[in-house]
């Protein structure tokens, strides 16, 4: 081969050399990819702009300031039909955040318990946990949501026959769970401040006690002190202020139970369904993480005379975390994104309120852009947080 190449004319040789030069090749491919990408982006945006102009559809983000005119059933912030489209979308965004946040917490707890359960030596527990994982992992989340929603609506009684916990004014019916709403009186902001001070103080004490233990070996009852601070300090302030708390008690109206706070069945179905569904994946991740720690680690710890509980806490779990965290991040992102399925049961999340806005204003491109940007930034922020957490938990090698 080499001989023929050298025998070839000089121009052919340099061309061949260029074609087969990995460096030139790589530059060529990168440049052409970049060009195609730019052309694609340009064509798509140009096409969109042209089509919008041709169909005489209004464009721009001015519509966000206009009056929405529709009501939303479940809102964390004050919202009426007089609020703007922008606020309607924000209400949906907060609902999405809420579902994602509490869903992640619940799914993690479920996942942890089930994952440990599958590792249990107790035959019944481990089999039950296996059944759980296999069921929820293999059903599409939308069906789980539907099943729970129809189940909730089907099982619960009508308003007239509400289940009631007497004395505490808690009602349960197919319109949701209604309970007394705490109404904080004047000066109650001080209670929150006291709580924040207690938390900060506990953290400082923990740091101090750790240092002292490192230096002197003396232990400090950190848990009891912190618990006392965090519960006691706000309670003290609360009593000093003269207990500025009253309750908005729900009462039976002609149609519904009015007053109080309520958890709507749509929210409940979505929240539980996502937690159960994602929990089954997290269980497997936890199990894999713990199984992934070499047995020798436990044996070595035992040989050193470390107690089994301490071994789990200080030897197995920290090493398992390294395996657990990256796939766990993906599950958190999945849960956040799956919350958009709430539209199927009428939960007013970002997609639902955005969809209504889209339909009333006809500004599809803008609304879809908002959706994408919001989900993207949500996902990226959770990724960044989990990466930071991962770096913190990573094995420090000496």
């Amino acid at each position, binding site marked *: 081969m080499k001989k023929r190449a050298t025998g070839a004319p000089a121009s052919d040789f340099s061309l061949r050399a260029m074609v087969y030069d990995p460096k030139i090749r790589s530059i060529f491919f990168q440049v052409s990819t970049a060009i195609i990408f730019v052309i694609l982006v340009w064509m798509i945006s140009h096409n969109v702009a042209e089509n919008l102009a041709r169909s005489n559809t209004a464009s721009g983000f001015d519509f966000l300031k206009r009056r929405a005119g529709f009501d939303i059933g479940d809102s964390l912030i004050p919202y009426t039909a007089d609020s703007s489209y922008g606020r309607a979308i924000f209400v949906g965004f907060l609902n999405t955040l809420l579902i994602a946040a509490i869903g992640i917490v619940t799914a993690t707890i479920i996942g942890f318990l089930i994952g440990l359960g599958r590792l249990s030596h107790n035959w019944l527990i481990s089999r039950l946990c296996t059944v759980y994982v296999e069921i929820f992992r293999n059903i599409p989340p939308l069906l789980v949501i539907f099943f729970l929603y129809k189940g909730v609506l089907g099982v619960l009684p009508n308003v007239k026959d509400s289940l009631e916990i007497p004395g505490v004014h808690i009602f349960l019916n197919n319109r949701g769970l209604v309970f007394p709403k705490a109404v904080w009186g004047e000066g109650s902001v001080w209670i929150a401040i006291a709580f924040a001070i207690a938390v900060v103080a506990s953290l400082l004490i923990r740091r101090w006690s750790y240092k002292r233990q490192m230096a002197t070996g003396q232990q400090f009852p950190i848990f009891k002190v912190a618990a006392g601070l965090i519960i006691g300090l706000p309670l003290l302030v609360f009593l000093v202020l003269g207990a500025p708390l009253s309750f908005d008690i729900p009462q039976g109206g002609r149609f*519904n139970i009015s007053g109080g706070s309520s958890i709507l069945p749509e929210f409940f179905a979505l929240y539980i369904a996502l937690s159960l569904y994602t929990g089954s994946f997290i269980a497997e991740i936890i199990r894999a993480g713990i199984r992934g720690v070499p047995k020798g680690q436990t044996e070595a710890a035992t040989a050193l005379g470390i107690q089994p509980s301490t071994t789990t806490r200080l030897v197995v779990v920290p090493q398992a975390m390294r395996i657990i965290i990256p796939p766990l991040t993906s599950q958190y992102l999945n849960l956040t994104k799956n919350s958009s399925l709430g539209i199927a049961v009428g939960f007013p999340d970002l997609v639902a309120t955005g969809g209504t806005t889209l339909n009333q204003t006809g500004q599809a491109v803008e609304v879809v852009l908002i959706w994408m940007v919001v989900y993207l930034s949500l996902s990226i922020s959770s990724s960044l947080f989990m990466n930071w957490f991962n770096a913190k938990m990573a094995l420090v090698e000496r």
Partner: protein
Amino acid sequence: MKKTILSAAIGAAAIAATAPAASATTLETVKAKGFLQCVVNSGLAGFAQPDAAGNWNGFDVDYCRAVASAIFNDPTKVKFTPTTAQTRFPALQSGEGDVLFRNTTWTISRDTALGFNFRTVNYYDGQGFMVPKKLEVKSALELSGAAVCVQSGTTTELNLADYFKANNLQYNPVVFEKLEEVNAAYAAGRCDVYTTDQSGLYSIRLGLSNPDEHVILPEIISKEPLGPAVRQGDDQWFDIVSWTHYALVQAEEFGITKANVDEIKASTTNPDIKRFLGVEKDTKIGTDLGLTNDWAYNIIKGVGNYGEVFERNIGEGSSLKIKRGLNALWSKGGLQYAPPIR
């Protein structure tokens, strides 16, 4: 080399996909593909609903068939795009459908900002409320505190908010995207009240397991002129869709039905009817519209007149039994009126 071929292919495909459509008119496009693509409701008894065999039936569906008859002289040359309240407008905007017949209310913002054109009203409707009889509600003004089921992205949703605010009433909205989901929620007792256009309420009540236990309240809280929409920028197509409706109405006024249209066409001496059915010598009415001169004859031959379409799908001849009311001919005290066809 594989990589470059692949990227070239992707590039070519992208160019093909994003190249602006040639500036053919909608009529030319429809004729070229051989059928009308009609955007309809995904399922509203009496207006647009597929039967067990998958054949679409209903008032809106017959309008699609009427337009197809006018163009192809064949009411079966229609394909349907079932849509939710939210997907109907993008479906028309993007060109997925040629015309929207989906019990859609004509409003100024839809006529302007959304880039559509409305002209004819094939059904004068108004928003109403349905409640279970056992709640013993007599008027919508008693509904304060009720949970109200409504479909998202409709004018209904907006009217509801306005009506309750104007009358200082409280309510909890229970909002779903799909009509089927709203129906299910109402049937399950998730809400006390169902609100939508009155015609829709009649249709939905029929689908409940016990229609007699539900009552439609007397209040009509809005004007809901339902009519076809087309994209802006194609006046010829807009005219065809509009005049299809006028032809249906005019046929009823003339007393021309699907059954007697042949007989009348052969024997009539009335110059108005001769011009209408395209038997007048050297008439250009149909060709000026971009169709054939017997376009109106084809429409009536295909689906009948307005009264027939109404009775068959939603009137006394159907299970909905909606009275003509505002939708009677202007000569009979209603609002249906066709401009002169001359």
